[in-house]
């Protein structure tokens, strides 16, 4: 495989925006080189066989091409956006289930009166904080989050797999979630 320099998050955002605006194939190939091998790795981690992972990655990248014009970098970074597409493609193609979602931007959504738009943390800042949170989480809590995201395991299944009591799994999970939420809410301690 070709060696590639790591792409900065801002660059990835700009590439998706470019694809959305001008259908630029070169920009799309750059996105493919960064994301396709990661999306496939993600699907393999979740237990897909190589052929299925390859197909679902194709479908994910095709959706990236088709929906790039709806990408809004003020809502989510490119990696987050691609993650949600890959996750939903997996549910659709591999689990064969539907994915109910709240319609973004729909008039029925009850708006949040407490947080004016200019006070929301910027996407870049949020992504930076998430990274910090992942790094500072105690090992056993980070492992739990990994299992939730990459092994498709419920708490009960995690308890069975690790041999830990369900109560321990639940409390570790709550701790991880609380810390994550604190970091996202701006308390970096």
């Amino acid at each position: 495989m070709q060696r590639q320099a790591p792409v900065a998050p801002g660059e990835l955002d700009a590439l998706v925006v470019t694809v959305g605006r001008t259908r630029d194939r070169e920009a799309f190939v750059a996105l493919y080189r960064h994301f396709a091998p990661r999306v496939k790795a993600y699907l393999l981690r979740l237990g897909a066989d190589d052929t299925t992972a390859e197909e679902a990655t194709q479908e994910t990248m095709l959706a990236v091409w088709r929906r790039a014009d709806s990408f809004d970098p003020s809502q989510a970074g490119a990696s987050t956006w691609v993650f949600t597409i890959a996750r939903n493609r997996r549910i659709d193609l591999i689990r064969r289930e539907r994915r109910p979602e709240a319609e973004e931007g729909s008039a029925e959504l009850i708006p949040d009166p407490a947080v004016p738009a200019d006070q929301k943390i910027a996407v870049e800042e949020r992504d930076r904080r998430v990274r910090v949170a992942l790094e500072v989480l105690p090992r056993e809590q980070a492992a739990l989050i990994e299992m939730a995201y990459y092994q498709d395991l419920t708490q009960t299944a995690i308890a069975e797999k690790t041999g830990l009591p369900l109560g321990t799994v639940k409390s570790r999970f709550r701790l991880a979630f609380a810390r994550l939420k604190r970091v996202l809410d701006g308390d970096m301690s």
Partner: protein
Amino acid sequence: MSRHHPPEDVLMAYAAGSLPEPHSLVVATHLSLCPACRQTMTGLDALGGAMLDDLSPTLMEADSLDRLMARLEEPAPPKAPPAPTDSVLPSPLRAYVGRGIENVAWKKLGRGIEEFRLPIPNTDGYTTRLVRVAAGRDIPSHSHDGDELTLVLAGGFTDGGENYRRGDVAGADPTVHHTPVADADGVCICLIVTEGKLRFSGPFGPLLSYFRG
């Protein structure tokens, strides 16, 4: 504003994509009604994005990029229009019910309780239903084999000293034995997902055999 949110592990499993479809429906409906959880969800999605970036890239098939580029001009499948919404059913739920709240084919269970089962394929072991309870009535004392997730859509109910109103979510695990009572101010409509079977223990339990799932 919701005061009772889905349990943390349920929110995270929804973000991770590992939550069963019936529970995902409860979360999506709650998200339509709860800005705070939508905010949390953007953080959990960002967590997924960060973890995707951190994965070691794997090898793609040699012809993978060529095959993809050849497909770029394929016509996209038509996008399904979002389901309409009504005063009780937010659009994600309205899509599953397939009709407005005024046209739901309620089935009477007796004692002021009616239900409508949502057909969700491949969800053996879960029962997903809308339940309508007359003002002030209780659901007979029961426990469950598995977890139960309840979302209030209209009216409200009180259970274990807590009051739940539209948008609120109540979770109950197998250790909980409860008797929820609908608020007196009107009919209470809930979306309830039950894992395993319900076990009734009150004097009216046997009458509600149909409820057992």
